[in-house]
């Protein structure tokens, strides 16, 4: 039994029994962990607000020899990010970011970059609030870190360069498709310029969220493309997605 200490972002919690709580949290060096917090709901002394979703904390835990639940000992609040609670769309987008991270990466799959990306995303929403750009930036970078990034700039089937104008896209077929490979099967159409924009986004630093402004067309096409790619790789639908779509401001 070794006491571990690490920065952590709380992704989710579920109540267990009358007083206990199971908490899913993301760390830079230990990936995603699930911990058991005894009496967390009854006694606010030990954990306070530090086990609430979206909180960034200094987590103290002990690994157990059996089972995948670690035992939570202490959590000190590092950052509350009160700005995430400014309005419903910001709060829902922040929650969506946490669920996306939880579902896209398995226990050991999330490395330090995933942590830094989610941290920067939450910081950005905390200060700037909701934006479609923030959502797209998070999604495209998470996909890229998960290794599921579809081919964008060349045909995913035959590798030939893509023509200007409308291009077909299918996450099921691993990305963009030239007219011949598509042969009329694919419903999603994306402008080459949008694909180019996504290519450039992937070259920017992972933690940069400010200063991006996409055209309405790029936002719409990009969202359709990312929805398709994410649906293809998530092992379950995201519960927060329906509410995010519902509470997001109209385009």
């Amino acid at each position, binding site marked *: 039994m070794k006491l571990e200490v690490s920065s952590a972002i709380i992704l989710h919690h579920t109540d267990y*029994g009358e007083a206990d709580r199971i908490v899913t949290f993301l760390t830079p060096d230990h990936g995603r962990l699930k911990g058991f917090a005894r009496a967390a709901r009854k006694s606010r002394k030990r954990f306070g607000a530090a086990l609430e979703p979206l909180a960034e904390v200094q987590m103290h835990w002990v690994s157990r020899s059996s089972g995948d639940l670690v035992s939570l000992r202490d959590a000190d609040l590092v950052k509350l990010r009160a700005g995430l609670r400014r*309005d*419903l769309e910001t709060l*829902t987008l922040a929650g969506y970011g946490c669920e996306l991270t939880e579902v896209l990466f398995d226990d050991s799959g999330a490395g330090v970059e995933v942590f830094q990306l989610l941290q920067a995303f939450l910081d950005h929403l905390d200060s700037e609030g909701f934006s479609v750009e923030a959502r797209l930036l998070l999604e495209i970078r998470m996909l890229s870190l998960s290794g599921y990034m579809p081919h964008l700039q060349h045909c995913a089937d035959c590798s030939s360069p893509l023509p200007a104008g409308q291009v077909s896209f299918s996450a099921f077929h691993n990305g963009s498709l030239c007219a011949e490979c598509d042969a009329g099967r694919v419903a999603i159409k994306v402008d080459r310029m949008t694909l180019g924009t996504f290519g450039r986004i992937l070259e920017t630093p992972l933690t940069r969220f400010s200063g991006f402004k996409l055209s309405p067309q790029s936002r719409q096409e990009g969202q359709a493309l990312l929805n398709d790619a994410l649906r293809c790789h998530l092992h379950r639908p995201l519960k927060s997605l329906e509410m995010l779509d519902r509470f997001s401001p109209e385009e």
Partner: protein
Amino acid sequence: MLDSIPSFARLVAELAKFPGIGNKTATRLAFFLLRQPKAQAEALATAILDLQNNTRFCSVCFHITEQNPCPLCCDPGRDEALLCVVEEPQALLAIERSRSFKGRYHVLHGALSPLDGIGPEELKIDPLIDRLDKGSVQEVLIATNFTVEGGATALYLAKLIQPRGIRVTRLAYGIPMGSELEYVDEATVNRAVEGRRDI
């Protein structure tokens, strides 16, 4: 070992379903009940059945009640213009214990939770809006919990209610009475500073 006494085993199994009660405590309780006079056992059984048979949710505020509408909704001494919205009946009871509120109540029976897929349809929000549209309420005090879910619910309700020209307020964030600042968690201190007021 309990298999040889089926009725005892059955009671232990039922008691162990209670929150916070494990097999060990359930066995202890069962032994206690075994030693009680028969009248005591009957009183307990009847109390449980009465609770099930006689209580329901008030059709106006959705608090637990034996008469419909509930006494809180019928009390002429309460202020029709002020409505307090809570997540659960337990929260209503907590506010009643404080004797600080003299308006009416509305119980949502839950909170919005984007991460658990709990949306507005699963809460008693439509009946709340119907009540407000009847016109006598001038202020809605949102007393949902101070959690992410309670906060999301408050934001959602404010968005629905404010356009109706009704004042929306939220319980103040505060330092617990009798506590020393040194021992209060950062989140509470943070909110208390934000919510400071003139004295």
